[in-house]
């Protein structure tokens, strides 16, 4: 068997910018799962998540030139692309219309399969770590990170001052840092 090639981040970025297919394949094999998970946690439907993941990797391939290593790790860059693409998707009109229909359908016939998938997704990764936070803090972080709401929007939804939203999210993120260590 061929031994598995591993790249350090520098090499990987270099090769990606050189449009190296093998490096891209490596990138996909090593990061598609992590990105797919975050996408699933935001869009919550596997069909849609497939489309978003495809869009994300196409964008990574096309925009790798603009990645600046001095501003952060490659994964962080990709994670933000994945999160933004997912949030754009759930914010789109077509998605929201579909959601309404889904809610109607769910009222009539609750899909067990969907629930199982969602449980799975909520119990891993970042979401799992967030479970350790106090509920009043966790809900704000989730609204900000998984729904893409601005602090102002969250303040409206929750009926609390913007300053409080910001303070609570910041403290939640600091705790998150400790839990991730």
């Amino acid at each position: 068997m061929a031994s598995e090639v591993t790249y350090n981040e520098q090499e990987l970025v270099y090769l990606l910018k050189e449009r190296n297919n093998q490096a891209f394949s490596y990138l996909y094999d090593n990061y598609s799962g992590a990105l797919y998970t975050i996408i699933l946690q935001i869009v919550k439907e596997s069909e849609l998540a497939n489309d978003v993941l495809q869009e994300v990797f196409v964008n990574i391939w096309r925009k790798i030139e603009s990645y600046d290593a001095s501003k952060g790790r490659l994964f962080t860059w990709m994670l933000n692309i994945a999160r933004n693409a997912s949030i754009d998707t759930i914010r789109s009109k077509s998605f929201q219309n579909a959601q309404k229909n889904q809610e109607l359908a769910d009222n009539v016939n609750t899909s067990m399969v969907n629930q199982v998938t969602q449980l799975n997704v909520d119990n891993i990764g970042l979401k799992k770590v967030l479970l350790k936070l106090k509920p009043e803090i966790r809900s704000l972080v989730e609204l900000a990170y998984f729904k893409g709401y601005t602090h102002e929007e969250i303040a409206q939804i929750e009926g609390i001052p913007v300053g409080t939203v910001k303070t609570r999210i910041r403290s939640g993120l600091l705790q998150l840092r400790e839990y991730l260590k």
Partner: protein
Amino acid sequence: MNVQEYISSGIVESCVLGLASADEQLEFERMCATSPEVNAAREAFELSLEKQAKEQAIAPPAILKNKIFNEIGIADTDGKKTAPVSTVIKAPVVKMGWLRYVAAAAILLLMGSTALNLYFYKQYQKYSSQYDALVASQTQMAYDNKALQTKLQGYESAMGHIKDPGMAVIKMPAVAKSPDPASMATVYWDTKSKDVYLMVNNLPQPVSDKQYQLWAIVDGKPVDAGVLDMQEGMTFAKMKNIPKAQAFAITLEKHGGSDIPTMSAMYVLGKV
């Protein structure tokens, strides 16, 4: 706000996760660039986030990879296979420092090799053109040689005829009214085959639309014995077969010869 306060404000995590405002993001980038501590805090959080995300990941459907690669327009090569290109690039950067020197040496060798290649290519071009010139001159020489051979064969055959004991030699000196009093030609007449050969001893080069014509005088009448082509430098030419003649003469006629000789343009005459 000092650096420690900045780090423990949660701004680092907020920026990494993309939750900060544009202004905060800009300030954060500035802080990272100027403060190694902020930069270290950022990297530590990024790493732990990445680790967590990779540890518990749901793999996307296998078919998706191919779909994505197709859209991008590249082949789905297996990233796990040993790739010669990537290992070459990879090795010097990471673990083994001495490979840097090997790589440097390899690059130097490559440059040297490239230079030599260029040099040899120039040499090759030079010799190639010299070779072409040699081939051309060789061809020219072979052609000249062939021409000489042909000429020599002509002389040999002429000599053969002249030496033939059965050959009658009829000298034709200039006639009294010859345009050129120094004219002289000789007819060699094979008494057996009756073939006639003409040797020009001295005749002025005719103008281009004129030709010397040999006449055999048979029973007082001139009979065409052929025209002489002096342009090719032939000094010994086979003429027409003449079975019977009392004399031979040469006149200058229009190109291709005439039916009747122009008496005023008679140069030489010789009796058999």
